[in-house]
């Protein structure tokens, strides 16, 4: 005995909507699904007529459905948007190359221009190369940090008004829950906002904010949208995995809990004195950062120094690594090593340095920087060897005198070598402490895209790798 569509259209219902409990037929479901997203877009004033909008496209279900619906609504309601797809190629063999094929399919299906930016171009390292350096365990630090920045850079290149991401209601509820579980009150307030972005950054909007994951998957299924699903090849954040599992368990019992949690996050009052770190410009790459040196630069520093764990993991580990590095370099104390790094650090990051050496730097990193994205060759030496290591060495000795203890201490902090930074306590100052062990804490809004893959969402779903 088939269940009939709740609207009385006479057709057979195909699904029960988690949000309302209504049984709907395919057509009535499409209509409700699209109408709700349209309502979210118009009520939240996410776009203005004539805007260029980049859809962050991963080839996964959320971004595929987002691209499809955005195209549909843009035509149906005459938003007047210039839509394009923006993808990040982390350089993960067998994972991203497959999903990029899906993104290219999206490009053809939806007739939208596609821009693919690679980690290799931006940072000089593919994720595969990083894996080779660091092993599998902490990769999400890299993939999360680099990805967030890469999207911003890509959006700057495309000269778009904003980036639309595929975060759905389940994702946002999960983030609210995570922030509650971590006592991260400052971020709690922000994580529910439909549009985020501080001065100097390109706003990110979430048209699927109130859309259930189940409906996204059902929509893609019935519309026969092709998407790519896999787990991220890298280790998941176990804590987030538990939060997700808890949420899914609760959703099964009471589906409205997703909306209820979002509502709680939206309406929770936050004390005035709890503030997020203010945005500033990374002194190395000149990109927006909440720290003096952005996390991407710290991670790159570690990679390029052969100390890939610098800036991630427990500070005691980083200390040990630096000690080993000391031994190799003939330095005896951490401070000496930090001085060494500091010296490098003041010398590098200046594109002029690279060019003033009278050697044309041909690395793609530098090409990117000419595209006015302010990206610089962070390591100070180019990976392809066109730029001789000389410039770095020259400046290294030149600047040797210019260091100060204060700077070293700042760097020690920057590299998270003070033990205290590891033991974060709950309190108003919480948001200002960069917790080395918690990869999701790196940027104000980062929780939502901690990883290019899904590892942040996967929990124990991690299989096969």
């Amino acid at each position, binding site marked *: 005995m088939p269940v009939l569509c709740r609207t009385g259209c006479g057709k057979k219902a*195909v699904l*029960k909507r988690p949000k309302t409990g209504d049984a709907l037929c395919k057509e009535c479901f499409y209509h409700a699904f699209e109408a709700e997203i349209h309502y979210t877009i118009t009520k939240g004033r996410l776009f203005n007529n004539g805007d260029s909008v980049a859809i962050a496209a991963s080839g996964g279900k*959320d971004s595929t459905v987002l691209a499809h619906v955005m195209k549909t609504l843009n035509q149906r309601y005459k938003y007047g948007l210039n839509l394009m797809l923006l993808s990040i190629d982390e350089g993960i063999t067998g994972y991203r190359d497959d999903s990029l094929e899906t993104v290219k399919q999206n490009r053809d299906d939806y007739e939208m221009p596609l821009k693919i930016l690679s980690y290799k171009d931006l940072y000089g390292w593919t994720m595969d190369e990083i894996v080779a350096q660091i092993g599998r365990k902490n990769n999400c630090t890299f993939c999360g940090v680099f990805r967030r920045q890469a999207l911003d850079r890509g959006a700057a290149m495309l000269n778009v008004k904003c980036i639309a991401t595929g975060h759905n209601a*389940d994702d946002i509820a999960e983030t609210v829950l995570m922030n509650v579980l971590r006592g991260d009150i400052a971020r709690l307030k922000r994580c529910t906002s439909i549009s985020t972005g501080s001065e100097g950054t390109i706003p990110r909007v979430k048209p699927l904010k109130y859309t259930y994951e189940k409906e996204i998957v059902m929509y893609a299924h019935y519309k026969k949208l092709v*998407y790519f699903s896999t*787990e991220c090849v890298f280790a998941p954040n176990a804590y987030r995995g538990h939060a997700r599992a808890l949420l*899914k368990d609760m*959703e099964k019992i009471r589906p409205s809990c997703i909306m209820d949690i979002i509502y709680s996050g939206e309406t929770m009052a936050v004390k005035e004195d709890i503030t997020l770190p203010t945005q500033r410009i990374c002194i190395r790459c000149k990109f927006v950062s909440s720290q003096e040196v952005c996390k991407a630069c710290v991670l790159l520093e570690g990679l390029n120094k052969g100390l890939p764990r610098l800036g991630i993991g427990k500070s005691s580990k980083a200390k040990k690594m630096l000690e080993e590095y000391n031994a190799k370099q003939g330095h005896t104390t951490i401070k000496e090593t930090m001085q060494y790094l500091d010296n490098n650090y003041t010398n590098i990051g200046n594109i002029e340095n690279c060019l003033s050496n009278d050697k044309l730097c041909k690395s793609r990193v530098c090409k990117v920087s000419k595209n006015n994205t302010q990206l610089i060759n962070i390591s100070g030496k180019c990976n392809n060897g066109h730029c001789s290591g000389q410039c770095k060495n020259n400046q290294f000795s030149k600047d040797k005198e210019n260091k100060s203890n204060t700077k070293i201490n700042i760097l020690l902090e920057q590299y998270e070598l003070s033990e205290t930074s590891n033991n974060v306590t709950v309190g108003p100052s919480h948001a200002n402490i960069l917790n080395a062990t918690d990869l999701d804490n790196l940027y104000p809004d980062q929780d939502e895209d901690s990883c290019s893959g899904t590892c942040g*969402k*996967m929990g124990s779903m991690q299989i096969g790798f």
Partner: protein
Amino acid sequence: MSGLTVTLQFSGGAELLFDKVKKREVELPALEKFLPQINKTDWSLRELLVWIKDNLLRERPELFLQGDSVRPGILVLINDSDWELYGELDYKIHNGDTIMFISTLHGG
């Protein structure tokens, strides 16, 4: 009563738990033979999940199953309709049915 033939489909990443096979036709034995202890003759989804666990799911069943049901976040479609409209575990399986499992847990 003799066995049933049903089509099983796995997608959205659920296929990764089943040797990446997205679609397979399976023949279910008589239920009295498969689970004599429950004294039932009609296959329901509840027993189908047990059969899948015993016959198809080689390792890490917890990624697919939780308790006597599927893990929350895995959608089940019976003949292309949401199983929530059809009694979920209590749905009585018919010969020729297509049961589809779509994971929402594998992201993008």
